[in-house]
């Protein structure tokens, strides 16, 4: 992670070394110039697309976030921080805290399910390894919306769980399972479990198994081996998995929208309603930028903390 960061900062220092003097040097410089040109021609469509349809739109959101709502739901440009003050006001900030809380719980749950799963496939998969993997990839490839919807079929008052429990005589009145904190966290956990499992598997698969055997030959117990050898060695997978789950989970709006009620609103729902129903785009923009800024700080703190542990 850290090395990659340095790589990013130096911007490919190796390629920008000064050309050697003399005839050979000039020839090399011209070759380098030609390569640079060809590379840029090949990259041009992607560069153009990402500048026009990612960088500029994000800048528009940034500009909007300092504006205010006009009389007809349009954005009046300006420079005011009142939208940001609103984001961090006691009325709205609890929603952001809730989003981070739900996402954190879901991330821990996916880790608790995904780690043993990935460990099993990597260590005991044997001949059926690719079957086990395909079964993880399948939910990863299928629609998140539909997988979320399937929990409505299971949890609603005439749903599968309530029908089974009623017919068994366990309950008389249907349980209220949908539109609860439980259903939203369940939905997030279910939705993002493959995002956790796949990077964990990738790093456990690469792990040198003789290190585990060595620890056990030297008398370490299974648990001790797991905690002091396997888990630290699979740390890159844990970091990648938690980020891949946590980031989309914080900003998710499908799960709280379908499986949650008014008390489970997350920041994604607020952004959506600001853009599509309340039509306060300026405030929605400030929410979007605040979300990205808080996420960025959280990720940096997390990566630094894990990185420090790895070194120490």
């Amino acid at each position, binding site marked *: 992670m850290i090395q990659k960061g340095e790589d990013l900062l130096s911007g490919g220092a190796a390629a920008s070394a000064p050309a050697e003097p003399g005839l050979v040097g000039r020839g090399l410089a011209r070759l380098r110039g030609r390569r640079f040109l060809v590379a840029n021609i090949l*990259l041009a469509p*992607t560069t153009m697309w990402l500048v026009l349809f990612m960088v500029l739109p994000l800048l528009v959101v940034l500009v909007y976030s300092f504006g205010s709502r006009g009389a007809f739901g349009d954005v009046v440009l300006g420079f005011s921080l009142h939208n940001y003050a609103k984001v961090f006001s006691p009325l709205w900030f609890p929603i952001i805290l809730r989003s981070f809380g739900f996402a954190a719980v879901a991330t821990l749950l996916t880790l608790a399910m995904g780690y043993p799963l990935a460990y099993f496939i990597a260590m005991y998969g044997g001949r059926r390894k690719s079957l086990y993997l395909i079964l993880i990839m399948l939910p990863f490839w299928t629609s998140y919306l539909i997988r979320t919807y399937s929990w409505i079929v299971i949890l609603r008052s005439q749903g599968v769980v309530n029908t089974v429990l009623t017919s068994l005589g366990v309950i008389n009145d249907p349980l209220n399972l949908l539109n609860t904190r439980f259903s939203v966290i369940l939905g997030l956990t279910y939705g993002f479990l493959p995002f956790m499992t796949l990077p964990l598997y990738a790093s456990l698969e690469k792990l040198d198994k003789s290190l585990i055997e060595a620890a056990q030959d030297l008398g370490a117990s299974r648990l001790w081996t797991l905690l002091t050898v396997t888990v630290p060695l699979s740390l890159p997978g844990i970091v990648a998995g938690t980020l891949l789950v946590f980031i989309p989970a914080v900003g998710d709006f499908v799960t709280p929208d*379908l499986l949650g009620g008014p008390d489970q609103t997350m920041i994604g729902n607020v952004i959506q309603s600001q853009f599509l129903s309340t039509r306060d785009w300026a405030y929605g923009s400030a929410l979007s930028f605040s979300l990205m800024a808080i996420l960025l700080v959280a990720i940096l703190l997390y990566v630094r903390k894990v990185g420090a542990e790895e070194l120490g």
Partner: protein
Amino acid sequence: MRRRRDQRIKAKGLRVYVALVYAFLFAPIVVLVLFSFNNSRRNATWKGFTLKWYSALFGDSAVLDAFKNTMKVAIIATILATIFGSLAAYALTRYHFRGSSLYNGAIYVPLVIPEIVFGVALLSGFNAAGLGLSLKTVIISHVAFMVSFVIVVVRARMSGFDRALEEAAMDLGANEIQTFYLVTLPFMAPGIMAGALLAFVLSFDDFVITFFNSGVGNTTLPLKVYSMVKFGVTPEINAISVFMLGISSLLLLLTYRIQSGERRTVQEPDKG
């Protein structure tokens, strides 16, 4: 000896846990498939097998229109993203130039921005540029988030390329363009195909970004499912869902076959 038995016992505990996690992953999908064939509107008890929800689906012109829109968007966006992404992946693995590692890092940005932020940013961008929302804006948006996925997949394939093959072709008298068409491109092909399939599935299933950038009346299948769910759970939704799950699963299996074939071609020299 004792340890062997320990290992088996431990693996047994792990096996049970893993079986439960798999059950958790697949129970909802099994429920959807089951109830899409259930002859009951109320949907929670089994009332016999029927195909009527599927036939209702194919008779529903709104669903068919949504399917047509979905395919149109997915096909055009996949072609664009695959061409752009493959060219970029080739450039990034082949040339090291000033800023290339910055570029290699920057392609991850669309993958880590929360989807809803990407969606509203595109909406704001189209609004600021005065572009009305239509299927065109949906296609533009899909290409923007898909191209990075294609680059990552194709770049992974390219990193296993042995440049000696190209040099051999040139030594045998092929020019640069012939070498590219006869040696480099065939090697890249499975990666390009896998990238295209992934891009297609991402576009086919996309809800959030489409939701913000499609405007009125340009419904795709995920948008149709969403609006139906908002009206209430019906067996027809289960049928559409199973149809969509089926398409995604088929494409995954296809990709898997391409990639396992790819592994074989890479391993062949070792065997000989």
